[in-house]
């Protein structure tokens, strides 16, 4: 039985969303989302296209103002706050599709990430750290970012977010358009950053297998509502997750099955 939602102790919460609704014009993208992220965790939000995953991240980082509900970060209400003010509080957003500055060099892209900081020593140290995580970026430091491959741009986007020395990173589909090998590499480093620096991660993914393997806790989003939440360990064992997110299904008597089971999210 579930019931885990209430039993998960609130511990050291870094982020909490309560009944958040956000809309693009008349279209409601998320219709009442409540979720919690504890400090030091990797939390993932799974969902299909158009479920509202990116909208959640945009609402947290202040790009989108919710029409209802509240976002609490480190105990403070940051609902509707300007994105630049939110970044300064240590919350970085790695957007979907990388969005690096194509005409700036790799190095300048990284410095853009440190825009909010004025401790030059610290910035230099973090730059070294980024290079250590992704050595390829050091090699390409002077190249224009637009000339990097997709995987390298993703590394750059993550590094750029790291340069703000965040406490919480929002990762929007880091695996988008990447080969399975590159995806694995990037996820390995995401986990390392989390373990070594204690950076909390909120990860939005379509690659459910990968996300469930790296994350501690997961939420499943369907048409703007959360339908399921549990530890990733338990989520992986659930029939609906197996069938609809991990592509595991029994093929039935005919050896192929086209029809879909009804989801009941248990």
């Amino acid at each position, binding site marked *: 039985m*579930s019931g885990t*939602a209430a039993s998960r102790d609130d511990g050291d919460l870094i982020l909490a969303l309560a009944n958040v609704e956000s809309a693009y014009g008349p279209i409601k993208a998320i219709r*009442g989302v409540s979720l919690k992220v504890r400090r030091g965790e990797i939390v993932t939000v799974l969902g299909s296209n158009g479920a509202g995953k990116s909208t959640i991240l945009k609402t947290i980082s202040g790009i989108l103002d919710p029409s209802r509900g509240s976002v609490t970060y480190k105990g403070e209400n940051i609902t509707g706050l300007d994105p630049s003010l939110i970044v300064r509080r240590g919350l970085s957003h790695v957007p979907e599709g990388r969005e690096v500055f194509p005409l700036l060099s790799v190095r300048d892209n990284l410095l853009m990430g440190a825009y909010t900081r004025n401790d030059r020593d610290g910035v230099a140290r973090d730059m070294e750290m980024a290079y250590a995580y992704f050595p390829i970026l050091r090699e390409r430091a002077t190249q224009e970012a637009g000339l990097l491959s997709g995987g390298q741009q993703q590394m750059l986007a993550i590094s750029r977010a790291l340069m703000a020395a965040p406490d919480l990173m929002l990762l929007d589909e880091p695996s988008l358009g990447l080969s399975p090998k590159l995806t694995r590499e990037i996820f390995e480093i995401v986990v390392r950053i989390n373990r070594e620096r204690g950076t909390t991660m909120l990860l939005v993914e379509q690659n459910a297998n990968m996300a469930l393997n790296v994350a501690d806790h997961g939420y499943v989003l369907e048409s703007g509502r959360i339908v399921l939440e549990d530890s990733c360990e338990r989520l992986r064992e659930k029939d609906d997750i197996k069938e609809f997110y991990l592509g595991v299904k029994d093929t039935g*008597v*005919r050896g*192929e099955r086209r029809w879909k089971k*009804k989801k009941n999210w248990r």
Partner: protein
Amino acid sequence: MSNLWNLENLKPRMDVVVPGETVPAMFCNAVAMRKERILMRQKQLGIWHEWTWAQAAEAVREIGNGLLSLGLQAGDCASIQANTRVEWVLADIAILSAGGVCSGIYPTDAAAQVQYLCEDSRTRFLFVEDDEQLDKALEVRSRLPLLKKVIVFDPEGLRDFSDADVIDLAALRELGRIHAQAHPAALDERVAGCRAEDLAILVYTSGTTGRPKGAMHSHGGLVYTVQGLNRLVSQDESDERMCFLPLCHIAERMGGEYFALYTGTVLNFVENPETVPENVREIAPTVFTAVPRVWEKFYSAVAIAIRESGRIQQKTYAWSIGVGSRIAALALERKPVGTWLKLKFMLARWLALDNVRKTIGIHRARFLVTGAAPISPELVKWYLALGVPMGEVWGLTETCGASTYTPPDRIKPGMIGPACPYNEVKIDPATGEILVRGKNVFMGYLNLPEKTAETIDADGWVHTGDVGLVDADGYFKITDRMKDIIITAGGKNITPSELENDLKFSPYITDAVVVGDKRPYLVVIIMIDQENVEKFAQDNDIPFSNYASLTLAKEVQDLVWNEIERVNRNFARVEQIKKFFLLQTQLSAEDEELTPTMKLKRKLVEKKYAEAIDAMYR
């Protein structure tokens, strides 16, 4: 008499509209009368497609001949496992025309149940809806040696699948065309050979305990009952009705399919179970039969919409429904309605009530019928206040559907009405049980002579298991199921359904099971209405993630408790509910806790949640 609705529209019709002593004979005669009229309509990919009587007859001939070419003998059983759709009706009439026996299987049934039902009914031909249902049949067919062919209505996704024992409906019709050329009179001979006393259909009752039992109905019983139905409130070719409840269930089979075959009412099939409200608005049926759950849904959609609307709209609605209620109350007491009130009612209709009717889609409805489960009298009164007459019918699978009904000129909410003229109904003086006798009574349970003898006594009375009373006007009232009566530890007899029906009237409660037999007080297990409770949580900033967390939220628990308190006020102290428990999983028709008609199974729920129940007594 009453000024609320037009009784001229609600007349019985005493003559026989379509002759015929068996279902196929009746169908043939009806086809000859109605050829190019529309019989059915079904929405596919957003467009309503029409089936005329002639087209349906052609399809029935081809399917029937197809079955003959595959070797169906008179008396062989063919089963249909599909949602309610046009092909269900076509296959049903074709099976009966070929002299076969038709049995329905719920599409929500699992493979093991399919096996049991096919074994019990000795099914030789199985019609399945699509690849999903086909997979169930394939899983168990090795254990069904009698099964000759599986016929698939919709072969989508099966292009690469080939199996000697599986064909699709188009292929069966092709076989039928070929067979008809060689033996043009074969099907007609079968139709002519069919006798009124022959077994026609099997309707399996979803036993709450043990295996389902196959109730046998003869052609004569079915025809007798549909003719009787038209003598309650008649309908004809100008009427439109929705066909959306499971056809395996006696209510839609009789009140929907067979009644329409007899009267010519157009059957409108919904796209799928989720689109019912939308499809109802599109069709605006003139006669509408549904189960209480559907009426509750319509009501709570309106209740929620009102709660969301502006102050002025709320006031207008409240005033209008108030006027409607007053006029309905006078009509129920058969008292004259003053001109002033009539004028106010016209204004109320113009301001609000007509719009409410339109939002539901009942603005053309001559009358509504509720049945198959107990309904809250308050809910009936609400529909009456809108100015739409709502009648109640009561009956069983074993009595071929309706055995009592409330005549539109004398509705008494809370009572199931007098006996339908075509059968006798009385109360067993010893036990209080309601007994029914008539030609509509079933032939017995298939393969279960002892159970049959337990149900039909030597004088032909069906023991319904419902306990009731009868008033001076001959109106019956169900007080409870015999098995369900609760006797608390304090010795007080309590009828749980009264409490449960009042609880279900709340937009936040879908179903409830009151427990308390041999216990010090009453407790209740509740299934919440997910949509409405989610909306409540969202509007009141109550954080929740999944269904379970919703049921555990304190505010939701308080909300439900308030609903219970509201109901408790109508009952004496010993009859009040003291504690409750919300089911934490969202149940669907596939779950064992629910009947195919989405009612909680009392015994199973009591057993499965025994621990939670015990906890409420600690």
